[in-house]
């Protein structure tokens, strides 16, 4: 049963939840956001020890060994835990100054830690229902976080929209899960796949699996803002407090991808022929709609939200290609996107604390007013567009190369169109990214005053900046980690007969 060995697999989540409970207790004594924030940071750092050791030493831990376990700590889940924890780390670091004048500080940090714990449960789940519980934990915490500023009408509106859409998507996903459970008698990904191999198509029940699959894709598709389920994302990203927007874009959206990866690469790999076209079309639609809508946005958070939708389209390429290269490329893109998009949002948050608005016009002349933030923003935007030698280029290179490689290996030539669509879209996206850079450096702003920026927020930006540059120049070890993660995930899927 539950011994210390298997407890290792849930220790990171347990630590986070423990700190999430301790922080309100500390909040009874002090209202200082620095003490609360640094306690949260300590919790995040402690929770990162387990996954970091796993990456280095590679000895897997399984919690609650039933047939295949409910939660595992392997290379895949450890890598994603580290991604989620580092997102939580820089978000909390930036929040210490960003929320210093708000009420209800302890709840804010508690909810961030709980949301991160939910993402980590998703990363380590081997069972569809456990994964769903993790998604709900994150979603419920983030609904509350979006509405964190109670007097902010925009935040209240965004939270309502987020909650309604989130509830709808949970309903779809749960109904799909219940159908899968009824048909296959299990919600474990590996056993699900074994059932599908044992009962191939002419079986009457397989159409029910298709129905369930579509419902789950709708449910998870809302979470990752896949077109046509993306309408909520720009509103919520715009209305939420900007540090929370960073967490939604860099953390909870990635959680949806982890869920889809597990569903398609382990659970439903046996019926790949039935879903590859569907997901491929969704991927191309998502990136195209995201980029086209981003072109004429005037609010920077909205523009970044649409760019985030486009990035989701790129990552979706990994699913229909379904080779280990594609999966590793997808994971690598998630890794880099977590830092470049999160970093861009943190820059927006930092500027908001010194009264620079969200309209892109207020970014005019920023290069003179705050050289560091303007440089950071430029690097994040160029990295998002995929310009070498930044992280976004490295990950896009691996991701777009995978379909071509798969097409030459398997002869499925249509896969090449995924790469073509991705490259064309990257070119389109350059247009709106460069516009911001031009505003910052070329155009003259209304004000020329130097901006004085808090040190903790500067540190949060610097973390993202350093990682974006380092991954771009020296992608080797990071790609290796993604490659090992991909192998760990694929080791659960039963090879086709």
């Amino acid at each position, binding site marked *: 049963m539950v011994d210390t060995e298997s407890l290792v697999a849930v220790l990171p989540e347990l630590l986070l939840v423990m700190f999430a409970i301790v922080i309100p207790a500390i909040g009874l004594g002090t209202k200082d956001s620095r003490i609360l924030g640094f306690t949260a940071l300590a919790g995040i750092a402690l929770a990162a020890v387990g996954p970091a050791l796993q990456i280095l030493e590679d000895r897997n831990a399984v919690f609650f060994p039933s047939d295949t376990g409910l939660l595992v700590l392997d290379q895949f889940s450890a890598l994603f835990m580290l991604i989620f924890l580092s997102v939580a780390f820089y978000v909390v670091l930036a929040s210490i100054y960003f929320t210093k004048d708000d009420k209800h500080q302890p709840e804010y940090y508690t909810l961030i830690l709980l949301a991160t714990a939910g993402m980590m449960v998703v990363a380590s789940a081997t069972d569809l229902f456990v994964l769903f519980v993790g998604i709900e934990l994150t979603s419920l915490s983030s609904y*509350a976080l979006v509405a964190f500023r109670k007097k902010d009408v925009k935040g209240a509106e965004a939270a*309502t929209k987020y*909650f309604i859409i989130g509830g709808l998507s*949970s*309903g779809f996903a749960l109904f799909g899960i219940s159908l899968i*459970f009824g048909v296959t008698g299990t919600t474990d990904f590996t056993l699900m796949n074994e059932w599908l191999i044992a009962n191939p198509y002419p079986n009457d029940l397989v159409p029910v699996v298709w129905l369930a699959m579509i419902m789950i894709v709708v449910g998870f598709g809302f979470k990752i803002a896949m077109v046509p389920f993306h309408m909520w994302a720009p509103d919520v990203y715009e209305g939420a407090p900007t540090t929370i927007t960073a967490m939604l874009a860099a953390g909870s959206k990635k959680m949806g991808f982890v869920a889809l990866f597990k569903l398609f690469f382990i659970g439903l790999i046996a019926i790949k022929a039935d879903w590859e076209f569907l997901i491929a079309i969704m991927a191309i639609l998502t990136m195209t709609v995201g980029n086209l809508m981003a072109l004429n946005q005037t609010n920077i958070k909205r523009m970044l939200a649409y760019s985030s939708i486009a990035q989701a389209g790129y990552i979706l390429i990994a699913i229909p290609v379904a080779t280990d290269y594609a999966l590793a490329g997808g994971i690598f893109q998630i890794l880099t996107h977590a830092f470049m998009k999160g970093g861009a949002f943190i820059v927006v948050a930092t500027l908001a604390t010194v009264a620079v608005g969200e309209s892109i016009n207020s970014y005019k002349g920023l290069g003179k007013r705050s050289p560091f933030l303007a440089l950071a923003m430029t690097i994040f935007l160029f990295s998002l567009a995929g310009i070498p030698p930044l992280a976004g280029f490295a990950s896009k290179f691996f991701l777009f190369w995978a379909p071509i490689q798969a097409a030459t290996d398997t002869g499925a030539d249509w896969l090449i169109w995924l790469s073509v669509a991705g490259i064309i879209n990257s070119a389109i996206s350059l247009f709106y990214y460069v516009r911001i850079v031009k505003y910052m450096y070329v155009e003259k702003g209304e004000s020329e005053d130097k901006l004085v920026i808090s040190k903790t927020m500067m540190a949060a930006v610097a973390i993202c900046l350093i990682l974006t540059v380092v991954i771009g120049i020296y992608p080797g070890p990071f790609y290796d980690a993604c490659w090992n993660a991909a192998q760990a995930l694929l080791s659960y899927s039963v090879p086709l007969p």
Partner: protein
Amino acid sequence: MSVEFTTGIPLSWFLLVSATLFTIGVIGILVKRNAIVILMSIELMLNAANINFVAFSAYYDLPMGQVFAMFSIGLAAAEAAVGLAILLNLNRLKDTVHVDDLNIMRW
């Protein structure tokens, strides 16, 4: 347990009820404009899934189904709590819970 059930109401009836509930829930979300009614429709969708879990659990002798149903009842309760809090705050700020009035942010 499964034997006792199979002689009574067939499984398909349960599935029919849950599918109907689910459809009512989806239509409710799409058609109704009052956020509280939408919240109720979301609960309907989750409960439809619960009926499925329990029915499958009884007919195929899968005890996990009932565990799942209990977990999802807990989740639905938590969701309602967070949702009502958000709607309460919205009502306090804008004096409405009509989703058509949520129009500060467009495109």
